[in-house]
């Protein structure tokens, strides 16, 4: 942080020892009677019954997977079932300590936590509240074939909840998320249950983002990331724990939002991955809890807890909540338990002995609690027997309804496969509210940045020629203006990424924003791309709006899962229930060699669920950024570093000072012509226009240049019309040839303009090998010379010019380059 954290060589070079401190293991020592007195009989019995329901629910799934029936009723289910039989106390102990507004996220093995949180919520909510929740627009599809008057009864509500979860698992339209999530992705936000995740450790960054939302928006509820022990090896999990513990949360200058993030990393430690064992085999530690000590001086307040004892788990979460309330989070809990069931029903458990499994069956959490209940006369043996039968009936009733296609149909994908497609984007937006003043540190008009921008010409040319970037608005300034506007009118918008504060982002787009925004709304993230994107997903899921940045497109790989599986997928996987308003700025580099110059815009378009924008002029950058920031869909905003210093010379009226928007998905004719169409992606536009100028001046050829501006979505009408007029098309992009987005466009034009085209379409793209050093870049990226060659390929004579380079695409295919 700017000039406040001094690095003192004397201190740094001193000899000393770092003390890691102690991590308590199974410190809980309360007797059953003490716990009973503390919690009361009703809660203890409710917890016990919840454990029975979870157990029966999963035995039902196991029977279906293994025998194709449940209680003699046949049903085939082809999807996954990662069961947590044996781990019920971890789930129930946790839920027992949480409020309905507290939020949990889980893993592929989270039916237990989902059921426990849901049942406790039902127990706490009034009948009226429950009716309201079940009939809310996002959830009423579950009960659409139910007689809703009966749902007010709690017992009925539990059945509906089981029905919603079973339907979700079986891929039915009446599932929590319309059957589009399934077993590993079920969630139900009204009860504080946010998405479970099939990517090991995938919930850690998202949960951290929800915790960030709670902190920034000053909410008091905590977030629990339920993740497996084997996920303690995953980079994004470490990145998340560090993100939540960042020093700046404690040293925040403005002291308004203080303390580490309100989150518990709850490792459900069953001592196995699928079959591999973290302790002693795949990890270096002898205790998972040890990792807490690596993150911060508080060791994340890590504790090892007996996960087979609901009271120990309840106690640990209760204390964690207190720590968090004091602003001392995050907390790590290593909750040790064991699954009797295999990793999945097909698991032969060849990796462990029968003796080991039996020894854990002896400490079956349900048995332990049942014995305590009986020994202390809370229930009679026959009452327990009755409870077992009643739970079986409850599960069966929900199951029978969930498999009944009349009550619980499937989405009619055979007749309308686009139902899912139409859930990919919500195509809604939240318009800026200019009358609202968000919290700021100073009037933006008084900042040096805005003062100098306001003095600049809005047009990049005058009678003497092109103005420099200090005299006229640049592409960089054009991006800044709508960002500032949204930031000062919307408190829910957070802006972060590497070197975003003070430095203003590596390319200075945010210069001046530091003076304006409090540090909880504009901050430097760790160099942790997975956490940057993953937390933004969580922040948006919770109701906020995030503008994040990856410094170079080449770093996309570091956030691969978070961009491709999380940001891109959750809107559709939630059946359209979740909205993810995230703008991910990604800059395409140049001059810095092979790992800093790749244009991966095409790669991004391959992933369903992302809108991809790639402006090339300052005018477009401003209008498209405004649209991106108000969009409720995830948008990747690609910026080419070659453009940041460009002033506006292409749109002759310049960059308007006032706020305006450009519709996402619409290309633009940048230069009108009649002989030939050049279709350009991103920064290639500058070279396309240069080529058009040369063609006009030297050979009197009139070229129409169209800039894609958006890649997803993309409206091809303008291009189709242009080609029917010019009958010739050249496509140009800085992305590599193989899998280039333009191939799809070219196919479409072959189809739509089949009678118009006089030649095969020419394309100019980067080759399928690495970018050379800065001085050689124009021997790699499409150049004006390459475009002129392509014009020759269109059968156009350019007097005095012959092709410079021959391209042997057939051979390159064979060579794989």
């Amino acid at each position, binding site marked *: 942080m700017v000039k406040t954290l001094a690095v003192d060589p004397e201190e740094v070079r001193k000899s000393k020892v770092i003390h890691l401190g102690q991590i308590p293991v199974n410190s809980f020592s309360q007797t059953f009677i003490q716990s009973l007195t503390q919690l009361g009989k009703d809660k203890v019995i409710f917890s016990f019954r919840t454990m029975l329901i979870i157990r029966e629910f999963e035995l039902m799934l196991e029977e279906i997977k293994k025998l194709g029936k449940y209680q003699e009723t046949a049903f085939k289910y082809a999807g996954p079932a990662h069961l947590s039989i044996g781990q019920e106390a971890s789930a129930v102990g946790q839920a027992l300590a949480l409020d309905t507004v507290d939020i949990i996220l889980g893993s592929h093995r989270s039916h237990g936590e989902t059921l426990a949180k849901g049942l406790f919520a039902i127990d706490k909510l009034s009948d009226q509240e429950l009716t309201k929740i079940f009939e809310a627009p996002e959830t009423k599809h579950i009960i659409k074939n139910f007689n809703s008057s009966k749902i007010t009864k709690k017992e009925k509500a539990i059945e509906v909840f089981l029905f919603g979860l079973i339907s979700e698992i079986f891929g039915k339209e009446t599932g929590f998320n319309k059957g589009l999530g399934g077993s590993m992705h079920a969630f139900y936000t009204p009860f504080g249950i946010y998405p479970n995740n099939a990517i090991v450790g995938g919930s850690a960054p998202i949960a951290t983002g929800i915790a960030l939302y709670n902190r920034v928006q000053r909410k008091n509820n905590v977030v629990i990331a339920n993740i497996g022990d084997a996920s303690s090896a995953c980079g994004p999990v470490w990145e998340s724990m560090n993100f939540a513990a960042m020093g700046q949360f404690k040293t925040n200058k403005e002291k308004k939002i203080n303390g580490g993030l309100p989150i518990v990393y709850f490792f459900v430690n069953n001592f196995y991955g699928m079959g591999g064992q973290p302790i002693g085999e795949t990890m270096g530690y002898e205790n998972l809890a040890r990792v807490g000590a690596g993150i911060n001086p508080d060791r994340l307040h890590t504790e090892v807890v007996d996960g087979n004892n609901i009271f120990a788990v309840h106690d640990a979460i209760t204390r964690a909540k207190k720590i968090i309330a004091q602003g001392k989070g995050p907390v790590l809990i290593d909750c040790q338990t064991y699954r009797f069931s295999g990793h999945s029903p097909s698991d032969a458990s060849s990796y462990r002995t029968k003796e080991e499994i039996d020894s854990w069956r002896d400490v079956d959490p349900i048995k332990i609690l049942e014995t305590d209940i009986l020994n202390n006369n809370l229930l009679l043996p026959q009452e327990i027997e009755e409870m077992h039968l009643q739970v079986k009936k409850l599960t069966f009733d929900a199951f029978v309804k969930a498999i009944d296609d009349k009550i619980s149909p499937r989405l009619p994908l055979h007749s309308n496969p686009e139902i899912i497609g139409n859930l990919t984007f919500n195509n809604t937006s939240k318009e800026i509210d200019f009358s609202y003043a968000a919290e700021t540190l100073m009037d933006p008009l008084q900042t*040096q940045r805005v003062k100098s921008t306001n003095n600049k010409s809005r047009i990049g040319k005058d009678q003497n020629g092109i103005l420099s970037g200090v*005299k006229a608005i640049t592409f960089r300034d054009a991006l800044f203006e709508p960002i500032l506007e949204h930031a000062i009118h919307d408190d829910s918008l957070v802006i972060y990424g590497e070197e975003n504060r003070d430095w*203003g982002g590596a*390319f*200075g787009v945010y210069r001046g924003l530091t003076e304006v925004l409090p540090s909880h709304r504009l901050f430097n993230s760790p160099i942790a791309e997975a956490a940057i994107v993953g937390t933004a997903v969580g922040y948006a899921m919770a109701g906020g709006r995030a503008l994040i940045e990856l410094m170079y497109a080449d770093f996309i790989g570091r956030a691969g899962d978070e961009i491709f599986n999380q940001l891109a997928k959750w809107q559709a996987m939630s059946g359209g229930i979740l909205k993810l308003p995230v703008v991910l700025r990604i800059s395409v580099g140049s001059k810095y060699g092979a790992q800093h110059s790749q244009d991966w815009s095409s790669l991004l378009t391959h992933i369903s669920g992302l809108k991809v924008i790639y402006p090339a002029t300052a005018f477009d950058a401003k209008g498209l950024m405004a649209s991106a920031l108000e969009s409720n869909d995830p948008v990747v905003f690609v910026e080419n570093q070659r453009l*940041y*210093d460009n002033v506006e010379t292409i749109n002759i009226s310049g960059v308007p000072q006032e706020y305006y928007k450009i519709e996402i998905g619409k290309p633009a004719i940048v230069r009108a012509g009649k002989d030939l169409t050049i279709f350009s992606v991103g920064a290639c536009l500058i070279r396309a226009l240069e080529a058009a100028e040369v063609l006009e001046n030297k050979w009197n050829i009139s070229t129409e240049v169209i800039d894609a501006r958006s890649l997803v979505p993309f409206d091809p009408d303008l291009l189709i019309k242009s080609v029917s007029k010019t009958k010739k098309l050249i496509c140009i992009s800085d992305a590599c040839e193989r899998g280039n987005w333009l191939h799809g466009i070219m196919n479409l034009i072959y189809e739509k303009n089949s009678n118009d085209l006089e030649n095969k379409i020419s394309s100019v793209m980067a080759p399928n090998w690495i970018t050379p050093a800065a001085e050689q870049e124009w021997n790699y990226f499409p150049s004006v010379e390459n475009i002129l060659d392509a014009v020759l390929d269109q059968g156009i004579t350019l007097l005095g010019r012959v092709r410079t380079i021959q391209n042997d695409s057939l051979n390159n295919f064979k060579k794989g380059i």
Partner: protein
Amino acid sequence: MEEQILTPIIGSEDGQAVLSTWSVKAGDHIDIGQIIGSIETNKAVLDLESTKKGVIKALLVAAGTEIADLQPLVTVIVES
């Protein structure tokens, strides 16, 4: 002996920069490393540091002027 202080190579895309303020004037004594003005680029505001020790004979550009990399900015009568 007279020597000149030049604009540093700023490394911005095309060297676009403005000498935004002077914090010294002709006749002032300056030292190596002393901040004598500020340069504003599109990306940042940078300190202009003296690379000479001596007395300023003349400031060669007025505040607000666009400057190029390695352009002479100050003439200094240097002390040996």
